[in-house]
């Protein structure tokens, strides 16, 4: 024979007409390909064949121009055939290599970390500055409606206490730069307990329970912290970052079934809580500055935090608070005390009948929630 030895690939032939397999041999000889052993032997130009992309060592498919298909074991000879997909070949090549896998793990972790700590906060800032304040306010009003239908009732505090809280709030609000139309809403909510929230658009909710657990003056220190959130549009940025983290989580978890997917939300909740901690520290600092400018002592913040901590739980923005959205209380209290050091407060003004101050200082005895109904 004058021919060089052809490469032989044993395969099963499927003619596209029935399910029957015919064992055949594919002979690759230069630019020609022959199928030997079928009912009718056939020859094709090598360039007219298409081999399916490699998937590790799984069997591969070779499409023939007459509609036949060969199924054969993965083997080096198949690399000579034209590929059915030009873009998948390089990917399959990368998948084979352990070094690439190791690199991909590191690059993915680095990418996720960079996106989380640098990309997403910047993106959130950029998006937040493009959302007009009126739009932001509609977010906040929507959230307030949700609060009112599900969690809160109108306040049951007396008008004098409310007047004092509002006066103090206005005092601090004047210190905001840039000026804001932040608005205070007082609500009764035994379910939420002593807490305050800054909603998007400058809507601030404070619960009766917080005002009663602490004093009126201490509540004003908490409101200064919430105004700090307003100053940096934290609620909106939080919303944007939350969406970003959720999108990233979906990308990573797209593969897991939905039940397992909800488990991969656990790291996401923790990740979002991490953001909150940065925001809280920022709001604390802004709050202390505003308090001092208005003549109030940041020490009020420390004592209020102490009382709430003694009573149990301080949560701030919704679900994330369960994964400790707030920096450890001790740190915050220490920082508030540091901010108050050497400061001579000119406020609060003397009040005729300070009924909240008359409450026993020993707040560790929990206030029965039924008292306020």
């Amino acid at each position: 024979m004058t021919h060089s030895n052809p490469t032989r690939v044993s395969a099963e032939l499927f003619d596209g007409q029935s399910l029957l397999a015919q064992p055949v041999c594919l002979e690759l000889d230069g630019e020609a390909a022959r199928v030997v052993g079928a009912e009718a032997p056939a020859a094709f130009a090598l360039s007219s064949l298409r081999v399916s992309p490699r998937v590790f060592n799984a069997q591969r498919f070779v499409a023939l121009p007459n509609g036949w298909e060969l199924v054969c074991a993965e083997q080096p000879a198949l690399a000579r055939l034209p590929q059915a997909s030009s873009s998948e070949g390089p990917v399959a090549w990368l998948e084979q290599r352990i070094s690439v896998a190791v690199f991909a793990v590191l690059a993915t972790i680095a990418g996720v970390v960079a996106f989380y700590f640098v990309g997403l906060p910047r993106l959130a800032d950029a998006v937040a500055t493009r959302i007009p304040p009126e739009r932001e306010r509609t977010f906040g009003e929507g959230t307030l409606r949700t609060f009112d239908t599900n969690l809160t009732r109108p306040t049951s505090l007396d008008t004098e206490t409310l007047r004092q809280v509002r006066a103090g709030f206005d005092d601090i609000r004047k210190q905001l730069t840039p000026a804001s139309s932040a608005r205070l809403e007082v609500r009764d909510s035994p379910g939420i307990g002593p807490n305050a929230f800054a909603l998007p658009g400058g809507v601030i909710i404070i619960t009766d329970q917080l005002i009663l657990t602490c004093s009126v003056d201490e509540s004003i220190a908490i409101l200064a912290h919430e105004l700090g959130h307003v100053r940096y549009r934290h609620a909106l940025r939080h919303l944007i970052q939350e969406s970003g983290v959720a999108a990233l989580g979906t990308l990573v978890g797209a593969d897991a079934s939905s039940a397992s997917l909800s488990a991969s939300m656990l790291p996401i909740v923790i990740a979002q809580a991490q953001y909150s901690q940065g925001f809280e520290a920022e709001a604390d600092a802004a709050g202390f500055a505003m308090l001092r400018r208005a003549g109030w002592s940041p020490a009020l913040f420390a004592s209020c935090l102490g009382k709430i901590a003694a009573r149990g739980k301080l949560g701030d923005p919704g679900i994330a608070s369960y994964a400790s959205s707030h920096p450890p209380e001790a740190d915050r209290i220490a920082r508030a005390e540091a901010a108050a050091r050497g400061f001579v407060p000119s406020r609060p003004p003397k009040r005729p009948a300070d009924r909240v101050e008359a409450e026993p200082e020993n707040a560790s005895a929990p206030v029965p929630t039924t008292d306020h109904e």
Partner: protein
Amino acid sequence: MSGAERAGSAEQESSSGAPRAPEVEQRSLSLVFKGNARDYFRLWIVNLCLTLFTLGIFSAWAKVRRKRYFYSHTELEGIPFEYLADPIPILKGRLIGVVLLALWYAGTHFSGPLLLGVVVVGAVLAPWVMVRSAAFNARYSAYRNLTFHFAGTYRGAAYRLLEAALISFVTCGFGYPWALANVRRYFVARTSFGGVWATYTARGGHLARPFYTMVGGAMLGGAVVGAMQFGSARLGRSVTPTLLALYVLYGVGYAYFQARLGRLNWGHSSLGPIDFAADFRARDFIWLYFSNAVAIACSFGLLVPWASIRMYRYRIARLSVEQVGSLSDFVGESRSAVRATGAEVADLFDFDLSL
């Protein structure tokens, strides 16, 4: 392992040379999954990395690679399934999906007329998306050089979905099993392989038992958890245990229903001379879901591929395929035409939105 033994015997059989006799009237076909978590992890991480650094564009390729991995490693009678799709239509589908999602997100957060518009458009598009995705997946799935085919229409799917919504609404949700069975019957019965149409014989009554068991269990558990929550709120304690309990409750209910539903769906499906049976057990599903969830959460997602392989392997191991008639019923449609025009068919309306 019985699965491995079956695989071994099937390989001997398929390599015995002569074309298999079509006269065999009743026997079990071997179904084996040959993938492993180590390889799949490599495929997953490389594609995930590329997806992240192309801002999601590559996810279409990632999907093709993922489908190809599972198809190629699932062998029925020694021959793997084949996934034929091109990433471009998938990319198109995903871009459409992202736009819809963004509209939905904007709609829910800005509220007002936009949300109403999004809901209406979504309701009008839903049957279309479902039909197109089913058609796409069928057309690009092949076995032994024959492709699947889906012949559902927008009108038919829209009618079934509307009917399902009405049944569920009028019965306050208690008619959901019947609605589910109707929709499923429509989609299964309009799927064919090699000219043979699939059938789905389950009725709402079949699905009702697992559904009511799940709902009843959820209500009972929810009441207990609710009482716990009420108590802890009054005492001013943390609600974290309550959330955890609700999560576990949800997981158990979901896993139980998925196992029972999968079992019923396969048991009542057949493809001409081929019968299916799935011996899924609820306790296995519960264990798999929870152990997978813990593994994924603790590894910050790195064990997602391991979890996927584990779940898939279980499903395949418990799925049996019985041949109860002659396989010569299956004949080629126009497979070669699909091959030749595969790229051209990928017009604007050829897209896939399924995960």
